[in-house]
C-alpha cells in the first residue's frame, strides 16, 4: 500500500464523538475550545491572521492571542465579551472526529444548554479552580443528566492560577462527586487543566505530577460512549410514505432502535396491525438487514395502513401508546407554561394538540429540591402530567432518547416554548375509556327540537355581555327553546370559588367553565356563556372541546373608555385607583378575537336590537 492509500484508509476508520462544553462565565470554555482547535491544528493561517487582528481589537489577554475570539462568533456577543448562543465546532484526531456544542454559561441561557445536551454523548463541565463548584455547576450537571448525557468530564480549569495545587483539585472533585451521586451518570473523569497554557489539554502536563490520568484529548479519544442501540427492541418512526408509482409503497424513516431483517414481523404501534418486512430499500441496493441509525425505506407485506407518525415496532416489545403521560419539561419561552393552556406537541414525527393537566412540582436545578409551583417560567424545569388530543407512541426517555422526547410549540407565535422527556404513561389513559351511551346528544337535542350550541360572549368588564345575553335568553325561551346561562361572576361564587385573577387562575377559570358548557351541550341545550375570557389561546381551547359549528364566539365590542364610564359595578374606578390587581383592560391584557363568529358593536346600539340580531343568527343556523 502506498503512503497515500495508508493515510486515506486511516481516515475511513474514524468514529464520531459529539460532546458539549458548559461552564459559568469566565470559566474559560471558549478558550478551551480554541485551544483544542489550535492544538489539533485546526486553526488555519488565514483564521490565525483574523484572530491576531481581533485579539488586538476585542481581546482580554493583554496582547496574547485570545483563543476565545475564535469561538465567540456573533458581533453582538463579541462586543459584550460573552457567548449568547450554542456554537458548533469541528475538529478531528487520528481516531475520531468531534462535533463540539459550546453552550453558554449564563443562567438565563439554560435553554441553550439543553439544546446542546440533547444531541451530546458527553459533557465537559468547566470549573474555575479559584472559585470551585458554583450553583451554576450543579445546574449544568443537572441539565446534562436530565437530557440523558451519561458521560462527564469535570475540567478543573485555571489550575495555573492556584499553583497546580493538588488538594484544591481534590476538594473540587469530591464536592462534585458527592452531588453527582444523585444524577444518572455512568462515568465521570476529572482532569486538572489550564486552557490558556494548554496544560493537560492535548498532552499530559509536567506541572501536575500528582495527577496520573489522561489529558482531556486522550480521554476524548478513548472514552466509550456508544450506547448499544442495536440490541434494543426495533423502532422506526415513519417520516413519509414513498409512492413513486402504483406498484411501490414504501415507508421511509431512520431506525431509532434495534435492527430489522427481511421477513421480520412488525407491528404498527398505534393501530395494532401486524405485517412482515418484504424489502429494505436503499439507493445503494436492497438490504437484508438494517440497524439503528440507518435511514431506509421499508416495504411491508399486504395492504397495511401506515402513514407519517406511525412507529413500526418490535411485535413482542411494543412502545407505549397513550394520551396521558408524565414528563419532565424544560421551559424556554418568556411567556410561562400554564396548566390548562393548549400547545402543539411534536415528537420526531407526530404532531397533536396537548395541555399540561397538572404541574406536579418544579425541580430546583441547583438544590435538586422539589418545589410546588403553579406555572413554569423560562429556564425552569418541572414534572408534569400531559394530556394529548391524539394518543402518541413513545418509549420512556431513559430507554430511548429519540422516541421519548417532544417539544411544545406556542400556537400563536409558533415558537418552540419547551421541551419534554417522557417518564411513563399514566394508568388513567389505559383504564378509563369513553362510555359509549345509547342515549346521546343527538337524541336529547331532537326531543327538544333544537340544535345545541354554545354562545360564548367575550369582552371587557361592563361591555354589556350579561345584558345582551339575558335579553337573548328571554327571546329564546319565548320561542320554546331550552337554554342555560353560565355567568362568569356567578360561577366564581361556586364552582370556581377557589380561583383568583392571576393569569394561571384565569386559564383554569375558562377551562372549567368550558367543560361545564360541554356537559350542557351534551344535554342538548343552548348554552350562553358570559365570560371576559381575555386570552385567545384559552378561547381556542374552549372551542376545541366542541364539534364543528357548535361553538359561536361572540365578541361584545365596547371601547375601554365607554366601559369605564358605564362602570356598572364600580370596578373600573377601583382598578384605576390601583385597588384591584390584574384587572382586564387596566392592569391585565385583553386579546380581542381575530375572527369572531359574531362581532357586536354596542356603541349607539340598543341591547335588545343586538340580542335580536344574535337570535336571528342562532335560529337561522339550525335551518341551513
Amino acid at each position, binding site marked *: 500500500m502506498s503512503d497515500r492509500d495508508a493515510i486515506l484508509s486511516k481516515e475511513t476508520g474514524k468514529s464520531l464523538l459529539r460532546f458539549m462544553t458548559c461552564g459559568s462565565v469566565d470559566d474559560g470554555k471558549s478558550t478551551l475550545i480554541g485551544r483544542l482547535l489550535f492544538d489539533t491544528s485546526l486553526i488555519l493561517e488565514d483564521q490565525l491572521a483574523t484572530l491576531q487582528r481581533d485579539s488586538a481589537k476585542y481581546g482580554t489577554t493583554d496582547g496574547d492571542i485570545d483563543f476565545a475570539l475564535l469561538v465567540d*462568533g456573533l458581533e453582538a456577543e463579541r462586543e459584550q465579551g460573552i457567548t449568547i448562543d450554542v456554537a458548533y465546532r469541528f475538529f478531528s484526531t487520528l481516531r475520531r472526529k468531534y462535533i463540539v456544542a459550546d453552550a453558554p454559561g449564563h443562567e438565563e441561557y439554560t435553554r441553550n444548554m439543553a439544546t446542546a445536551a440533547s444531541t451530546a454523548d458527553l459533557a465537559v463541565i468547566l470549573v474555575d479552580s479559584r472559585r470551585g463548584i458554583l450553583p451554576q455547576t450543579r445546574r449544568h450537571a443537572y441539565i446534562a443528566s436530565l437530557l440523558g448525557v451519561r458521560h462527564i468530564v469535570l475540567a478543573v480549569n485555571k489550575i495555573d492560577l492556584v499553583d497546580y495545587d493538588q488538594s484544591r483539585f481534590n476538594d473540587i472533585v469530591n464536592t462534585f462527586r458527592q452531588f453527582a451521586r444523585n444524577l444518572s451518570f455512568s462515568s465521570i473523569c476529572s482532569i486538572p487543566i489550564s486552557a490558556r497554557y494548554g496544560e493537560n489539554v492535548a498532552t499530559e502536563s509536567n506541572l501536575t505530577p500528582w495527577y496520573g490520568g489522561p489529558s482531556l484529548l486522550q480521554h476524548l479519544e478513548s472514552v466509550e460512549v456508544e450506547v448499544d442501540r442495536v440490541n434494543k427492541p426495533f423502532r422506526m418512526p415513519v417520516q413519509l410514505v414513498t409512492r413513486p408509482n402504483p406498484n411501490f409503497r414504501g415507508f421511509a424513516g431512520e431506525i431509532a432502535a434495534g435492527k430489522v431483517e427481511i421477513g421480520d414481523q412488525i407491528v404498527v404501534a398505534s393501530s395494532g396491525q401486524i405485517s412482515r418486512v418484504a424489502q429494505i430499500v436503499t439507493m445503494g441496493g436492497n438490504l437484508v438487514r438494517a440497524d439503528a441509525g440507518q435511514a431506509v425505506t421499508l416495504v411491508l407485506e399486504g395492504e397495511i395502513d401506515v402513514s407519517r407518525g406511525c412507529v413500526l415496532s418490535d411485535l413482542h416489545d411494543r412502545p407505549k401508546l397513550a394520551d396521558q403521560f408524565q414528563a419532565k419539561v424544560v421551559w424556554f419561552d418568556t411567556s410561562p407554561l400554564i396548566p390548562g393552556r393548549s400547545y402543539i406537541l411534536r415528537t420526531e414525527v407526530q404532531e397533536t394538540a396537548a395541555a399540561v393537566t397538572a404541574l406536579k412540582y418544579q425541580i430546583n436545578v441547583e438544590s435538586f429540591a422539589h418545589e410546588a409551583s403553579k406555572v413554569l417560567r423560562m429556564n425552569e424545569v418541572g414534572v408534569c402530567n400531559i394530556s394529548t388530543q391524539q394518543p402518541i407512541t413513545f418509549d420512556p426517555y431513559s430507554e430511548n432518547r429519540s422516541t421519548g422526547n417532544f417539544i411544545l410549540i406556542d400556537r400563536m407565535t409558533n415558537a418552540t416554548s419547551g421541551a419534554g422527556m417522557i417518564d411513563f404513561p399514566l394508568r388513567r389513559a389505559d383504564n378509563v375509556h369513553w362510555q359509549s351511551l345509547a342515549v346521546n346528544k343527538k337524541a336529547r337535542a331532537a326531543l327538544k327540537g333544537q340544535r345545541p350550541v354554545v354562545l360564548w360572549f367575550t369582552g371587557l368588564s361592563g361591555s354589556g355581555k350579561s345584558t345582551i345575553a339575558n335579553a337573548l335568553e328571554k327571546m329564546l325561551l319565548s320561542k320554546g327553546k331550552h337554554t342555560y346561562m353560565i355567568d362568569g361572576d356567578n360561577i366564581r361564587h361556586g364552582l370556581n370559588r377557589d380561583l383568583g385573577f392571576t393569569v394561571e387562575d384565569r386559564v383554569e377559570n375558562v377551562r372549567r367553565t368550558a367543560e361545564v358548557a360541554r356537559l350542557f351541550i351534551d344535554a342538548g341545550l343552548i348554552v350562553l356563556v358570559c365570560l371576559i375570557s381575555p386570552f385567545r389561546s384559552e378561547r381556542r381551547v374552549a372551542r376545541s372541546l366542541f364539534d364543528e359549528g357548535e361553538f359561536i364566539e361572540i365578541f361584545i365590542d365596547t371601547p375601554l373608555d365607554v366601559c369605564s364610564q358605564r362602570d356598572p359595578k364600580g370596578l373600573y374606578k377601583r382598578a384605576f385607583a390601583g385597588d384591584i390587581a390584574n384587572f382586564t383592560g387596566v392592569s391585565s391584557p385583553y386579546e380581542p378575537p381575530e375572527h369572531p363568529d359574531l362581532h357586536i358593536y354596542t356603541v349607539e346600539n340598543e341591547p335588545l336590537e343586538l340580542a335580536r340580531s344574535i337570535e336571528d343568527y342562532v335560529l337561522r343556523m339550525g335551518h341551513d
Partner: protein
Amino acid sequence: MLSTHLRRLESESIHIFREVVASFSNPVMLYSVGKDSSVMLHLARKAFYPARPPFPFLHVDTTWKFKDMIDFRDKIAHQFQLDLLVYRNPDGLRDNINPFDHGSDMHTHVWKTLGLRNALDHYRFDAAFGGARRDEEQSRAKERIFSFRTSQHAWDPKRQRPEMWKTYNTRVGENETIRVFPLSNWTELDVWQYILAEKIAVVPLYFAAKRPVVERDGTLIMVDDDRMRLKPGEQVEEKMVRFRTLGCYPLTGAIESRAFDLQDIILEMLVSRTSERQHRLIDKDEGGSLERKKREGYF
C-alpha cells in the same frame, strides 16, 4: 465503504430532507453547482429513492459563473431529470450589474442576495435547502439546521428557535419561511471524503489543470471569458491551478495545486493551512461581514 462518522452524517441529512418534504407544501433546493450542492443532490436522491426528489432545484444565476459550472449544471439536470429552475435577477440584467463596474459588494447584493429573495417570493417557496456548513465561518457556527426567516427574509440571531434532538419545529406563519441546512454538521473534509466514497461527480474546476490566470491583490483570478478586464501591468499566465470553492469567476481565487483527483484533494486538505473561504473575496474585511450579509437575506 463509509466510515461510521460519515454514515451518521448521511443519516442525519437524509432525515432532514424527509422532514422538510413531509412538513412543507412548497420546498426547493438551492443548487449552486458546487461540491456541497453535489453532495446535497446525492443525499436528496437517497432520501426519496426509489422516487425522485419531490421538489425543484433553483439556481440563482449571476451571469458571471464559470462556463464549466453551467455546462456541468445542465449535464447533471439532464442526467437525473431534475426540475431545474434558473433565476437571473431582472434588475441585475436591466442595470448590467457586474463586479468590474459595481464592485463585489454591490454585485453580490443584487445578483445573489436580492436575486435569491426575489426568486423565493416569485415561486412562493416556503422552505429552501441550502448547502451552508457550520465549519465555514463564525456566525454560521451558531446557525440552526432549520433557520427561521421573517416575511422580509430577515435572519434574527436572537429569535432563532432552540433546536432539540432531531425533533424539528417546522411550523411557520403566513409568508414566513425556513431555510434548511442538511450539511450543517459536515466539514469541508467530510464533504470530499463523502464525494470520494460515493463516487459523486463534481465540476472539473476542483481538479488541477493548466488554466489562464492573472494575479490580483495576491489572488489568482481565472480568465474565463473575454469579459475579464485586465488592469495595467497585469499579465495572463498559464498556471497549474484548481479551485476550493466556486462562485463568480472574477471573484473566486484559484490556488496553485497538483491535486488531479479526489485522493489528491483530500491529501492536500489534510496538510492545508488555509480555510476555503479565504478564496472568496466577499468575506474579507471584518469578521462580522458574513453575519451582516445573512441578516439581509444572503445565504
